[in-house]
């Protein structure tokens, strides 16, 4: 037990002379100290939860399949967006093909 702990023990003993309604004060204080000592090294709640879920084979498989489906969904949205943009470009390009008055047509080249 280091000096700080001994000091804390002495301070806590002083509270025994004070009339307060707080059972097991010493034990509670030490429990909180121990908890605070442990928390920084431990994983945050979210990661603990993720770790416990991913360690099970069924959930791990579900996670991998979800990633694949998510990737495909994003790809579909991206392709749809590209097709809309490409359609607009080609519509403008077609007008340039049929109308000599439009500048920047490939016919100028």
């Amino acid at each position: 037990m280091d000096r700080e702990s001994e000091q804390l023990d002495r301070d806590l003993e002083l509270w025994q002379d004070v009339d307060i309604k707080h059972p097991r004060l010493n034990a509670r204080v030490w429990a909180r100290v121990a908890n605070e000592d442990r928390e920084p090294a431990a994983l945050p709640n979210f990661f603990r939860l993720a770790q416990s879920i991913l360690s099970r084979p069924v959930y791990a498989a579900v996670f991998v399949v979800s990633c694949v489906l998510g990737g495909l969904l994003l790809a579909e949205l991206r392709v749809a967006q590209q097709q809309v943009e490409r359609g607009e470009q080609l519509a403008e390009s077609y007008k340039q093909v049929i109308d000599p008055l439009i500048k920047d047509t490939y016919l100028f080249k």
Partner: protein
Amino acid sequence: MWKSISVLALGLACGILAHVSYVRAYSPACFSADTGCEMEWLRSELDLSEEQFARITRLHGDREREIRTLSRKVRDLELLLAELEAERVTKGYVDYLEIRNYMEAKRKLDEACVKSTSDLIASVGDVMNMDQRKRYFSIVQSRIN
């Protein structure tokens, strides 16, 4: 701990692989120096049959030389106007006769361009059915006179 990290990495890798593969397989890609991309796009946009597509491609091909010639004339007139403007700025001299000739040539060329475009649109429209023609006209609406 490491098992969870490897599952996480595997999931992300599979997701990225699926994403990239899908985009590569289905993204629109048409790279052509001539009108190939535009014609292919028109075919899919208007649901043209093979016969319609062949006739419309031929119509565009037949007109290409005329449109190219008109485009060159439009560019030449723009260059002429730029020269006149440069002369006015540098020498302070305005050749009104030349400007009148330019205006006259521009008017005639504009009319020829409009007629060429309208004729092409009308002849292409004749190949299509009612629904296709309606969609085609909505695409080229601003070019119809």
